[in-house]
């Protein structure tokens, strides 16, 4: 059982115009097995929340706390957070020239588990994950994210979700830039990984489209750096019909 608690989180970034507060008191609790969707208009701070939990150095926490099973996440380095069981599927995964996917995945798995995976089961798991995500086997020989299409980048993120088995997973706009077929494949991957590992899932999205494939237990509407409204899946349906105007203009 894992529990991620975000309490009164305030986050700022440095901009050319000086320091700017993006998150203004976010409260959120995610437990194993739960799926939370965070929805909101552009610029509302959704991605900032994701990157702050993962520990990106650009974001400065000025107030509040993040706890994983009661442990202070803010004191952990980026890699310590990952090893503690936090996972962020990125919206824009970066290229790592000269580093093959297979080398990268094995290095990450070894780091997360604290020991190298047994070769035979590892290759089997990797193949199975790639097959399920309809990724060609030649994929492992390519350099990480180099020349990947948008869809390939997202599949690669979800492959990592399946292989690294986190306790809390944050998906940052994993649905953006995917056509319907790719969205379905990626969503199935997320559901499969969640069924297998029972992680807590925080799904960040601009659109309700992905919620047709990944059913949320809770929906939070993010506006101007905090949760403006929360509810069950019905809230997503209402957003689908009404959009964000009601919040933005309020």
């Amino acid at each position, binding site marked *: 059982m894992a529990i991620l608690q975000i309490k009164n989180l305030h986050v700022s970034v440095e901009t050319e115009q000086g320091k700017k507060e993006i998150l203004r008191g976010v409260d959120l609790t995610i437990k194993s097995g739960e799926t939370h969707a965070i929805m909101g208009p552009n610029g509302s701070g959704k991605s900032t929340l994701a990157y702050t939990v993962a520990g990106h150095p650009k974001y400065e926490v000025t107030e509040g706390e993040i706890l994983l099973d009661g442990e202070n996440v803010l004191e952990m*380095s*980026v*890699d310590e957070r990952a090893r503690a069981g936090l996972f962020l599927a990125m919206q824009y995964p970066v290229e*790592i020239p*000269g*580093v093959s996917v297979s080398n*990268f995945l094995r290095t*990450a798995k070894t780091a997360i588990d604290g020991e190298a995976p047994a070769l035979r089961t590892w290759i089997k798991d990797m193949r199975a994950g790639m097959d399920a995500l309809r990724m060609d086997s030649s994929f492992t020989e390519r350099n990480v994210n180099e020349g990947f299409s948008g869809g390939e980048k997202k599949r690669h993120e979800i492959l990592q979700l399946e292989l690294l088995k986190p306790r809390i997973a944050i998906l940052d706009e994993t649905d953006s830039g995917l056509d319907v077929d790719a969205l379905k494949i990626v969503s199935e991957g997320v559901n499969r990984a969640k069924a297998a590992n029972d992680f807590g899932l925080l799904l960040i999205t601009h659109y309700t489209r992905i919620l047709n494939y990944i059913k949320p237990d809770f929906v939070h509407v993010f506006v101007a750096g905090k949760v403006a409204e929360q509810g069950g899946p019905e809230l997503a349906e209402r957003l689908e019909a009404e959009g964000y105007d009601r919040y933005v203009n309020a």
Partner: protein
Amino acid sequence: MTTATQTANSGAVQHGLIEHSHGYGVPIQTRNERIRSTNVADFAPISTREEQWRYLSADRINGLDADALSEYLGDISAKHPDSVTTQWVGADHPLFGAAGVPEDRVSAAAWGSAEKAYLVTIPGNSESACEVQLGIDSESDEPSALHLIIDAKPFANGIVILDHKGKATLGENVEIIVGDEANLTVISIQDWNDDSVHISAQFAKLGRNAKLRHVVVSLGGKTVRVSSSTEFTQPGAEVEMLGLYFADAGQFLENRLYVDHAVPNCKSRVTYKGALQGERAHTVWVGDVLIRKAAEGTDTYELNRNLLLTDGARADSVPNLEIETGQIAGAGHASASGRFDDEQLFYLQARGITEGEARRLVVRGFLNEIIQQIGNDEIQSRLSASIEAELARSNS
């Protein structure tokens, strides 16, 4: 002065790679007007006011700026198939001077001081590539001169590995003759001990449809400078010039390249990559490409990238492209020096990989792009191991 230079000094705030401003660099003088002579007296004393010595001061070269050097007395071990011959010949041999003329003072001093040359002859019409390994194992740090000639006959197919190691203060000239239709790879590895100084000028002359792959790997030595030039004499030839260097604290590693497109329809590709770590680690890359009026249909591209792993290191990168004809197939250059890309580190760390391991992965990947192109398994694994050793040092 419109050559593009990037310098990343300590304290500079950089994020990712900094691209240099584009546009064709115009050197101070046109490249082919530079003094070329076998007589050391024709060159001015070494000074950082001279373009060739702009980055390298005379006090770093252990006396190689003398007018005369002693003859190289170290060992040259040779391993090669029977079809290849290796022998010492006199400086009056007809091939002495067949591929080049010195363009700097140390090269001229070494040229005039060498009374003999080590000649490697690769016969034509060999079915598979002849591999020649030359171990240049020096044990003396007395300023000395060495002259090598590699003669790849027409239709030859060979690989020559120049493996420089030990203790040396060496001025060296390497002449590389690539005959018509020949296919030659020359790999020059500089892995000297910490106090060594090595200034090498390597001249390649390519015949019709000849192919040369020239690889320069500089890892060890206090001061290592390799000037590599390629001259096309007949149409249809191709050169690929690859370079890899890794400078530690206090090391100075310089590469100066010159590709002279004097005839039509030749192709050149230059790709050099370097990593730097530690206080006063300094690398210099100068890439001159000249496309003369007659060289229609030229296709050229040169690239240099540097990765600065720590503060206090400095990488200079200067591409120069001179074009005297518009009738070309393509001409371009790229140069960038930068620190670690923070986003790459974040991505790897977000997958549980420690910062140190993430840095090693990125550097390994960065340099692997060159290593993978060398085309010799033994050298590739040896270089990978050397890079691992360098990276292990960075972790201590």
